[in-house]
């Protein structure tokens, strides 16, 4: 079980959170300068590293905040709490 650092509640058990997927790039406000390949990449290609990945968790059974953390996909170590 992960202990996820919530900026509001402190470290809490993973079972209090819902997983929100990897943190993605912001959707660009203006899509017109993007070529097709960049747009397809933005929509479909997530980061999938063996190592640290930035991801979102929702403290749904706690304070209700969204939290972004950096977690290692091989060791489960939480490397950095980036808050939200």
């Amino acid at each position, binding site marked *: 079980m992960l202990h996820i650092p919530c900026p509001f509640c402190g470290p809490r058990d993973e079972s209090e959170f819902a997983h929100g997927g990897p943190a993605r790039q912001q959707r660009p406000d203006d899509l017109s300068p993007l070529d097709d390949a960049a747009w397809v990449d933005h929509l479909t290609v997530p980061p999938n590293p063996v190592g640290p990945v930035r991801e979102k968790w929702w403290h749904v059974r706690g304070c209700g905040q969204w939290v972004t953390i950096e977690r290692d*996909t091989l060791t489960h170590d939480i490397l950095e709490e980036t808050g939200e």
Partner: protein
Amino acid sequence: MQRYSLFSLARNALSDHQNWQQAWRSPPLRDTYDVLVIGAGGHGLATAYYLAKNHGITNVAVLEKGWLGGGNVARNTVTIRSNYLRDESIPFFVKSVSLFEGLTKELNYNLMYSRRSMVDVVQTWGRLRELKRRMLNMDIHGSTYEQLDVEELRRRIPALTGGGPESRLPILGGMVHPDAAVCRHDAVAWGYARGADARGVELHQKTEVKALLRNVDGSIAGVETNRGTVRAGKVAVAVSGHTTSLTETVGLRLPLKSFNLAAFVSEPVKPLIDVIVNCPDIGVYLSQSDKGELVIGGAPDPGQSFRRDIKQNVFENAVSAMLELFPAFRRLKLMRQWGGALEIAHDGSPIVSRTDIPGLFVSAGWWGGFKAIPAGGYTLAHLVANNQPHKLIEAFSLDRFRHLDFVLESGTTTAR
């Protein structure tokens, strides 16, 4: 190849089983082949076998970083089925199930293939609608799904005593998929390996591909391994769960995420359940092995992962879900647990495709990909040999992402 039969068993018994031939050779690694297949899992070995058998391409090496058949092919819960949703998917899985049925004979290797229905226990109306939608499409493509009422469901699975009218999620009914089967997973890897080896394919274990290599014109040149450079004009990547790490060495970004899926088994007990039971609304499925163990799987660990163990809370969730429906299993002792790193594509359908790099092919996004091994190998071999997709996998090419023309599939996962 030495054939296995009652006669060869008797003959070898006379010499105390000292004279059996090795199932496959271990030749020295050469520096050039026509085709390299990366990964000696089910898909890689089946691809090598069909390259040799169907296309006469035998100057092939399969490169495996660990030992042959030590990846997900050895770690899955062996459910073979074709109850998928999409017109593109169902014919592919129907073909795979039918190849499985003849495989013991074809490979001269006992897969212990055992056809036994899969029964879904339905506890929400949304699920029932989704499964009935699948049933309509499966009817068209020659796969079978039938609806069961609660009484018939409980008759088929006497151990299913939970989920009554007073429970959190009362059982609404069931669906049965009579084509489903289980078989011995190791035998699939070993049988294909032996068949490929007998046709001249080389199998190289402890040979890890560190990077893909390109020619100056951009086409594939070969691979860099821990045992040196190996060249080939065609390279097929079949590394289940680890695809993006390899393709990113040549800048190829793919719409895949890797996750950990895990399973566990109970102590062996007397025959108790003769179907595969799937409980998609609470996220658990189980069947009974020939040895009598209950083989139990749950939902995946939600965050991306390359681990091969099971997380305690994922394990506890699966156990508590199971006990809601099978309260008597409270007394079972659990013996072993394990996991594997699998990947899933953006739309939940597999990828069997050419890439932007001439000569480089990928077979990836195999979530429930054990059932897909025969058809996956058959069609990837066709693609590598002809540079043109077999019609069963036309829809599974990478082009679908380029055109945002997804093949959204809900039948990929059993639990949730």
